[in-house]
């Protein structure tokens, strides 16, 4: 793999989609109801499709997904966070898909983004619906949703680190994202954590290949078979 591929912004976007898709795939058979099972699988499949399309532009998709070490992955730390409970999964989805919706909306010269933005709008809508229900549901669901927001908030700042090579106004992205997500959290009766001025946004160097601890085991599971039987056709 050449260094040019590693530096391409599409690689970071593909890694985001692949890793979140894998996390959502881990819900299979474990969702609270059958209908959510289908919804989460649907979103995972959309994201996997996005990842495959992006990887294919960069090189061999299997090689990129299965043969890179943790340090070579450029996904943001938000998407690699463990599923936790249903609230953590849906708030993670809200944060990420709101960002993806704004980003893909700006990447009008990238065919994949134009195609995928419709999917992403649906992902955001689904996550928004659930954030409203959990936040404004029972005391217990509110507590869990607030915990999810508080836990994941620190990983959102990384989303607005500029990805060199993408023609995007990152300041507009950040303000648009904050406005939208804050609006949803307000409606869900959830408290918005402190902003970057309090250091709450500090975490996150996934784009530079520095990942959080749960990422390694996830990757080991994902890559196990391919690494055990390198070169096999499947």
């Amino acid at each position: 793999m050449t260094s040019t591929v590693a530096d391409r912004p599409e690689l970071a976007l593909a890694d985001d989609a692949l890793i979140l898709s894998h996390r959502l795939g881990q819900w299979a058979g474990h969702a609270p109801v059958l209908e959510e099972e289908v919804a989460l699988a649907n979103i995972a499949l959309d994201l996997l499709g996005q990842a495959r399309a992006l990887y294919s532009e960069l090189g061999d998709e299997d090689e990129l997904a299965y043969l890179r070490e943790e340090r070579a992955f450029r996904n943001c730390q938000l998407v690699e966070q463990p599923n936790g409970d249903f609230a953590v999964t849906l708030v993670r989805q809200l944060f990420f898909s709101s960002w993806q919706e704004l980003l893909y909306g700006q990447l009008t010269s990238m065919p994949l983004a134009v195609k995928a933005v419709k999917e992403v709008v649906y992902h955001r809508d689904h996550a928004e619906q659930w954030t409203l229900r959990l936040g404004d549901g029972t005391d217990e669901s509110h507590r869990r949703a607030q915990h999810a927001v508080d836990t994941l908030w620190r990983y959102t700042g990384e989303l607005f680190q500029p990805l060199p090579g993408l023609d995007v106004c990152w300041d507009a992205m950040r303000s648009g994202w904050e406005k939208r997500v804050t609006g949803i959290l307000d409606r869900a009766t959830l408290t918005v954590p402190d902003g970057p001025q309090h250091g709450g946004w500090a975490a996150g160097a996934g784009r530079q290949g520095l990942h959080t601890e749960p990422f390694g085991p996830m990757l080991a599971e994902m890559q196990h078979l391919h690494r055990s039987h390198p070169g096999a056709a499947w």
Partner: protein
Amino acid sequence: MSSDWPLWEVFVRSRRGLSHTHAGSLHAPDAELALRNARDLYTRRSEGISIWVVPSSAVTASSPDEKDPFFEPAADKPYRHPTFYEVPEGVKNL
């Protein structure tokens, strides 16, 4: 489950379809999520379609016991059936 996740009936009109057809049922906590679940389960997200969701409790069904008087018109009275009309030319979708 049954009180928090009641049953909904789903009716779908395909893009070129003329009427909504009963597609099946699903569980959802409210109408908004019933719509989204119906989209995932019954439409595979094709474009240009319409979905209705109705709480199953809102549907009144005819009773199987009344089947005979309810559904068996007198077959010997053909004037009840609109078979004597000629369809004018150019009428579509009849």
